[in-house]
Structure formats: C-alpha cells, structure tokens
C-alpha cells in the first residue's frame, strides 16, 4: 500500500516537473546560432529578439565580454550593445551598470549553449532553471507551513505562470536569482537550526547582494530572524536571560566567499573593491552611429549634441536611488496603474494575502518574516525613482513578493478546499492572470510607462499602448520571441495560435488540479461529517 502511495506521489512529482519544464522550454526566448558581435545591433536579436531591453543586454554583455574577450570591462562594440545600462569608470573604462552575479551565474549555460550553437539560449536557460527551482521551493515551503500537495502545486504554478515571473523566467534578468536566495533562506530556517543551515543562510545573504544590490534589504528580515538563532532573549521566572551561541558566530565566515568575489570584481571592473557598479557614472549612449540599432522601432538612444558620450550628471550614492517622496506614486504604480499594477497584471496574487493571514495565525514567527519581506519589497520599490522598471511587463520589481504571496495562495486554497465559490473565483482570476502573463512571456515585455506614451505617440505618429495589449499586438502582428516557436512551430501555426496553445495548456493543468482539489476537499468534508 505504502509502495503504491510513494509511486503515486513520485509519478505526480515527475509529471508536474515535466509540465513545468515543458512550459518554460516552450516559452524560453531565443534565436538559433551563437550570438556574436555581428549580431549586436540587428533587429532579429534586439527589438524582435531576446535582447529587447537594456536589462537583458547589460547583463549578457558582461557574460559575453568575460567569456569571449576575457575582460570585465567592455570593448566599444560591447559597450554600445550594453548602453544605456552602461557605466564608465574614473579611468575611462566601460563597465556593466549591474551587479555581476547574474552575468557570472549564466556562464555555464552560455558555454554549454555555445557548444550546441545556441549560446544565448543556453544562458537564458539558466534563468529558467532558477525559476523552476523557485517553483519547487514555493511548493516545499507551502507544504511545510501546512498546505496540501495540490494547493502547494497550484501556488507554484500561479507564481511561475500567472505572474510577471513568467516573463522574467524566459528572459534575462536578476529577479529569479534574487527570489531563489530569499526562498532558499526561508526554506533553510524552516527546516534546520544548526551550524550548516546558518552558514548557508549567510552565504545566500551575501550572494544575493552580488546578484542585485537592493537584495540586501529583502533579505534583511530573514537575516535578522536567523541572527535571532545566535543571539536571543528568553523570559524566565527570575528575569530575562540573554543567550549567545559563540560558535555560531563563525557561521558569518560563510559570507566571505561571495563578498570576496564581489570585492575582486569591483576592483577589477570598477577600480575599487567598494565601488558598486550602480554608483558609477552612467553612460546613456556612445555616438558611434555605425553601431546604432538598425530598424528597431523600440529603442531610441539619445545622443549628446557635441560630445561623444552622453552621461548622467548627478552624483550617485548607493542609497540615493530611494526617495520617500516617490512612495505614494509608487504604491499607485505597483498596485493600481494600468501600465504595471497588480490589479491588472496579476490579481491572482491577492489570494495570497488571505493565505498569509492564515499562516500568521499558525506560524507567527516565520509569517512575520514573510510579511516583512513583502513589506520591504513593496516599500523599497515604491521609493525607487522608476517604479515602472523601465520598459517592462507588469511590476517586475515585486516578483519576490509574488513568490511569497504564492505560498499564501497554497495555504488559502488548502483552507477553503471545499468551497466551490472560492475555488471558482480563484480559477476565474487564475485564468485571467495566466492569459495576461503568457502574453508577456511569448510576446514583448517592453511596455512603456504611461508617462512616456505621449512623447512616443508624437514621435511615431501612431497610437501607443502602455499595457499588456501591447504584447498582444506584438504577438498578432510580429510574432513570438520563443525559441521553440521560431525554430519548430512557426511553420505550422501563427504566434497567436501558439499563445493560445501554451496558455491553454497551463489552464488545462491548473483547471484539472483545481477540480481534483475540489473533489478531494469535498470528500474530506463529507468524511468528517460522517465521523
């Protein structure tokens, strides 16, 4: 009997994993062939290809430069490719504007991909791999805090395919790596309290900063929570006891490898171990016109009238990017606005709020960490000068919050497993969210903020959309950015049919799981009633 049970569980896990891998694979953006310097400024690779935003290009440029040119600083063509997310050091070298973690983590994928003549695809596949690991961690954490198997799967499914996390799982960005560090730390504190787990947490905390500097703040709550396992206060009958575990202090040493790497990178690339890339002077464009993007309708790099390079003139500090004055507008952009708001792009995560409340009642300490992490994430990126995240799909900066709220989704679905109304409502919102986010994954994710649209309309003379409709139009008029579609499927069906097929598949599996869950919940309730 047990054997059958284990086999059933294994088959379920294998099938679900295959499904997740399959959908990520069919969504993964890419072009065939190894990406080379001749491809830098072609429409096929930029506007209509995998490098549509400077966010993708900036990080990939560092990987390319490191592997191909053996340099942490950019040659002129690579610098042109990375602009406007390009920095210049005091001694005039071009450097990446981003923290180096992602660029280094994708190197194995790049090399393996290069071997198979798909270097870019290989690099992007590493992001998808981390997205998959995030889904797994959501599943495991949700189970740990009381979710049943199917709701935990639905939580993972919602995160991966019903939020903008889908778009950023098939393109190149820091988000899934950041989420991984956060979820992995939460998983560690939930399961272990020993020397090794604490070391791993400090390692992840330090590594997260190398991936993206603001991660320092997201991991602060979990870091403090872990710190509470080294220093803590206990209330006793005769007073307050202060307890320190001195040997655990050595676990902080685990932070050294990522920080040493970071210091080495900063020294080599930016001139000083403490010089963060984001605080370097930014170069918006280089005036070499032969390298300007040809035929692209999406990128418009401004050029300096007289000088060769157009730079930003403001003095920058690592915390100067965040201003509380922006917060009110930031809240609006992240939650309500048509161009990025959760309400329009991924309302399914709102079910997660209910789940977090339930977790809070049961597991106060860990739910405090979850709530604090969501709070940090929302507050930090509401203070950010560009809460839209440039030309992006949905509120991409809130992807860590979507992950944490997805754990809540699993719990909410577990709690109301027998409620037809709740599950129906969830399914309806889930359908909407999947349909929207598949657009971003398969189409373009370069959606301008509403504030830029008027100027764009003036320039282009056409109506410019600033919501997911732009991605839909892209799929209908230009096609899909998916590698699989371009190489294998485009001969048989058009991109919009492909979009329907992929989103239909996700909805079919999601719907099946919800129905299965409802039946299971109902039988559980009737069993209880009979007892």
């Amino acid at each position, binding site marked *: 009997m047990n054997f059958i049970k284990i086999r059933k569980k294994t088959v379920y896990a294998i099938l679900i994993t295959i499904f997740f891998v399959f959908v990520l694979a069919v969504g993964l953006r890419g072009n065939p062939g190894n990406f080379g310097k001749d491809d830098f400024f072609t429409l096929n690779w930029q506007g209509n290809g995998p490098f549509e935003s400077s966010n993708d290009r900036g990080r990939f440029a560092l990987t390319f430069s490191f592997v191909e040119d053996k340099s942490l600083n950019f040659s002129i063509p690579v610098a042109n490719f990375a602009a406007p997310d390009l920095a210049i050091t005091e001694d005039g070298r071009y450097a990446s504007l981003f923290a180096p973690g992602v660029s280094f983590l994708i190197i194995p994928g790049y090399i393996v991909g290069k071997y198979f003549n798909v270097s870019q695809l290989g690099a992007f596949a590493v992001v998808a791999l981390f997205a998959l690991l995030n889904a797994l961690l959501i599943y495991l954490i949700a189970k740990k805090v009381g979710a049943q198997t199917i709701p935990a799967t639905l939580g993972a499914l919602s995160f991966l395919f019903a939020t903008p996390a889908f778009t950023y799982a098939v393109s190149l960005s820091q988000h899934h790596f950041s989420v991984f560090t956060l979820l992995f730390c939460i998983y560690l504190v939930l399961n272990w309290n020993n020397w090794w787990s604490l070391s791993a947490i400090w390692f992840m905390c330090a590594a997260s900063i190398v991936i993206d500097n603001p991660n320092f*703040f997201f991991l602060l709550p979990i870091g*403090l929570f872990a710190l509470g396992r080294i220093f803590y206060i206990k209330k006793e009958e005769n*007073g307050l006891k202060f307890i320190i*575990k001195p040997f655990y202090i050595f676990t902080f040493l685990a932070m050294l490898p990522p920080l040493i790497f970071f210091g080495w990178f900063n020294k080599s690339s930016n001139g000083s171990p403490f010089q963060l890339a984001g605080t370097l002077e930014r170069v918006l464009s280089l005036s070499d016109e032969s390298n300007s993007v040809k035929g692209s309708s999406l990128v418009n790099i401004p050029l300096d009238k007289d000088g060769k390079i157009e730079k930003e003139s403001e003095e920058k500090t690592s*915390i100067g990017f965040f201003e509380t004055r922006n917060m*009110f507008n930031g809240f609006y952009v992240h939650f309500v606005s048509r161009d990025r708001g959760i309400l329009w792009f991924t309302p399914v995560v709102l079910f997660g709020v209910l789940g977090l409340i339930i977790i809070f009642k049961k597991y106060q300490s860990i739910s405090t960490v979850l709530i604090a992490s969501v709070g940090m994430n929302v507050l930090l990126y509401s203070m950010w000068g560009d809460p839209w995240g440039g030309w992006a799909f949905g509120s991409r900066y809130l992807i860590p919050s979507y992950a944490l709220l997805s754990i809540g989704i699993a719990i909410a679905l577990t709690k109301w497993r027998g409620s037809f109304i709740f599950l129906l409502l969830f399914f309806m919102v889930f359908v909407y969210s999947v349909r929207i986010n598949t657009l971003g994954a398969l189409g373009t994710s370069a959606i301008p903020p509403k504030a830029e649209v008027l100027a764009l309309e003036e320039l282009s003379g056409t109506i410019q959309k600033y919501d997911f409709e732009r991605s839909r139009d892209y799929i209908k008029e230009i096609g899909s950015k998916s590698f699989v579609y371009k190489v294998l499927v485009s001969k048989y069906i058009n991109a919009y049919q492909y979009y329907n097929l992929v989103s239909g598949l996700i909805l079919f599996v999601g719907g099946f799981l919800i129905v299965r869950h409802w039946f299971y919940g109902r039988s559980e309730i009737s069993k209880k009633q009979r007892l």
Partner: protein
Amino acid sequence: MKNNIIQFLIFEKYIKKSRQFLKRWDITILIIVLSLISIASFVFYLNNGLGLAYNDARSHLDIGRRVVEGLNTGFAQLGSVWLPLTHLLMTLTVWNDFMWHSGLAGAIQSMIAFVVTGILIYLFIKELGIGMIGRLLGVFLFVANINILYLQATAMTELMLLATMTAGAYLLLRWFKTEKLLYLLYSAFFIMLGTLVRYDAWFLLFLVSLMIGIYLFKKYNYKRAEGMFVLFCTLGGFGVFLWLIWNAAIFKDPLYFAFGPYSAHTQQDQLNSAGALPTKGNWLLSFKMYIYALAYNTGAFTMFLGLIGAVVLWMDKKIPKNIRFATVALIAPLLFNVLALYLGHSVLFIQGISGDTWFNVRYGVMMVPSIAIFVGYLVGKFKPLRATLIGLLLFVTFFSFTSGDAVTIDDARVGSSQKNVKEVSEWLKENTADKKGFILISVASHDSIIFSSGLPMKKFIHEGAGKYYKVAIENPDLWARWIVVRSYSDDDSTWREIKDKPGFKMYNLIDHYPFADIYELKPEYLENLNTEAVFDKNQNKQ
C-alpha cells in the same frame, strides 16, 4: 559557558526597578529628549539658511515686531488677517534684534509646542491603554518627521495649532472617560487658544461642540446636553468672540478678517476668477488634493498604517464606545481641509496635480499627530506584528532622512510661498541704512522685503504707520526718500495710492527687481524732505 552557550541573566527585580523608573520619569525624559531634538533642529535650519525660507515666516515676525517697534507701535499692529496669539507671544522677545532676525522669536513658541505635542501624543496613546512601545513609536513618528522638525524651527503657526488642538482632543478624551467637568473646561480652554492661532481650530470647536451635544443628549437628556454645550461653547468660543470684537473695534467690521481686502477669501476670489481654484465645488479633487498633501507630509506608508489604525481603533470593542467616539476629534483637520478646499476658502497646489508648483502643501502636517496616535495604537495593539511594523517604519524613516524628504521645505523654497527678495532687500540695506529718510512700502505686498533688509521697522512708512502713511501717500516727496512698489500693479496698495500723485514724479526709478521696484527721490527735492518721526503717539492715531 555551558553547552557552547554564553548566557547571562537580568534579574526580575532590576527589570521591575527600571520599569518603575521609566514610569516615574517618562515625561521628564521625554521633555529633555524632545527639547534637545528641537534645539538641534532649530540650529540646523538656522545655519543652513532655511529657517526663514517661508515668506509667511518673515511676515509673522514683522507683525510681532511692529507691535513693539516702528513709527506707530501698539497692539493694533496685530492686524486682521492672521489670528493674533502667536504674534502676541512673539512680542515678549521680538524687540531683540537677534530674536527678530534669527526667527527665534517666532520659532521658540513652535519649539515649545513641538515638545508639548510630543508629550500629548504619548499621553493620548497611554489613555487608549497602549503600552510603552506603542506610545514611544507614536512620539517617534511625530518627532522623526522632517516636515515637523522644519516647521517647529520656523516662525510659522502650525506647531502652535497642533499643540493646542492635540491638547484639546486629549483633554476631551479624558472628559469622555471620566466625565469630570474640569477636563471639559481644560479642553475648551485649549481649543479656545487654538482658535486664536489658526482658523482650523474653529472647525474643531464646532465639531467638538457637536460631539459633546450628541453624546450627552444620547446618554442623558436634552437639558443636560444643552447646559454642557453652552458651557463648552462659552469658553471654547471666547477666542472667536474676542476676534470678532477686535475686528469690529479696529476695522469697523466684525467679519473684516473674513471678507476684508487682505483676507484669504479675497485672495481665493482672485484665484477663482483666474481659474486657479479647481477644488472649489469638487469633492473628489478636494479630497484627492488633501490626501496627497497628507501623504507627502506624513509619508505614504505611515499614512496607510494610520488609516488602518483608525479603522481598527473604531472597531475595537474592548475600548468603550465613548472613548472611541472621543477620538473622532482627531480627524477634524482632515474634514476641515477637505471642506475648506471644496468651499473655495482654501487653496492647495500639489506638484504634478496642479501644475509644477507647491502651495500650502504644509496643511498636510495638521494630521501628523493624529496619524502618529493611530499608528502607535495599531502597533501597540498587534503584538505579533509589532517588530515587523516597527522595522518597516524605521526603514522608511531612514530613507526619508537620506533623501531629505521635506515637502514643506520645497513648499517654502520653490513653491508659491517663497519670494526671492534678496536683490531688492540687499539694495535697501546697502544704500539706505546710513542715510536719513523713510522708505514708503506696502507691508501687505512686501513684508518679506522689510524683514530681509535688516533695517529697523521705524525706517518704514507702511499701511500700519498711521498718520505717516496718510501724509506720505498724499505727498510722497515730503515724507519718503525711497519708495518700494510693484510698478503698474494695483494689487500693491502703495502703488495704487501714489501712482497719480504729482509728488511721485519727483522720483528716479533705481531698478526693476523680481517682486518690486525701487524709486529714489531726486536730489534736488531732498531739501523739503522730512527725515525724522515728528508725530507723537496721539497725533499719529488721528
């Protein structure tokens, strides 16, 4: 060290002792800490030159100064537009040149009000049954607000209003709790003081009177409600009554402050006819505008937590109904400001909503103590989430300081509230200080020039200078060596009076400046010029 663990114990008796110490000295400690913060903040803004950035701050100081120094001193200089209490308090110190020009004469009362408000927030939260952490957090949110820190360091009236209104609301809460008459009278007294600081407190007087009437009528009977209502209004409304009498006595119209030529109403009418009063008759925009001002002054996150705190407080069945009802007084500033915007009695410009400027955005600070109380209550109430909420609030506060987020300073520096009068006042300082002769000027239009020039008040002939002004506008060439006016603007009363007078032709235009022009009497007419104060006090009043 046992089992690889270092541990030490703080015995219960020491914890108890420190608790008792805090309980006994909490207010004293708070007074010391808040006073130090207040002084440090004043010194900071004095040194960086922002202390008197508001045009209004300089005007407030001049009003106080004119009572004690000038060609026509006396209490009549208090005027009709701005309520008199802060100016009256200023007269105690503004006679001193340092106190006048540093702004300390006006700021000192704001600084005291800052300390008092901080303590009142602490006591208010304590009355709601919240522990030390919630109370201290409430005080922290008030104190760590850069807008508050700035306004308490200037000669503006907001902090005095906050102190009097919070005192009124706190004592009202005490009365609702105990029904001791004394608290009601104290509350009425502080609200009465508030009504002599800013008109916002008039609305509080109205709201609180209504609350008292409704509460007593529902709990007892009409007679008792009527008696207490009349008693409360008699003391609470005494300030309003005095102000009406003052206006009737000095300006021959009890409503001169409301409808006179320098009243806010007249200014709003001008704005309205220029189409610059979009909130008038528009509830939604009025609400939106004030919410923005509130968010920019308190911080959006704190504001949202405050909103949640208010809802939780009003739904908290553990707190008696009457106590919950008493806290409604805390939202008086919100109601007043939205209503004033809707009726067109107030104007508020938010950058991004009403063009590219700020104006009166500081009105958002009126809700800061209330928000601090609501958040303090919320955090005190939800113990499990306490660490998270405090952490997030500290996080946001940290960034408010690193980004120097003070909308009130922007309002003062780049908004419509500022006037760059440096050039004209510098000219006056350099060219008139050591020469004999008066300067004819309108204080209604150019008070900040008078202040910034650093010249004594008695050097100026202005609307409040009695007979000097009357004779000077008839024959400027006999009384004024210099004239400062905004040429061709009939809004400038001095220009309006002298533009067609033959004597005005005897002046040379020295230069045009951003807000005013300077005229100087031609040297050939200096012979007939009066350069000394010749009228005695009685003559000057004629």
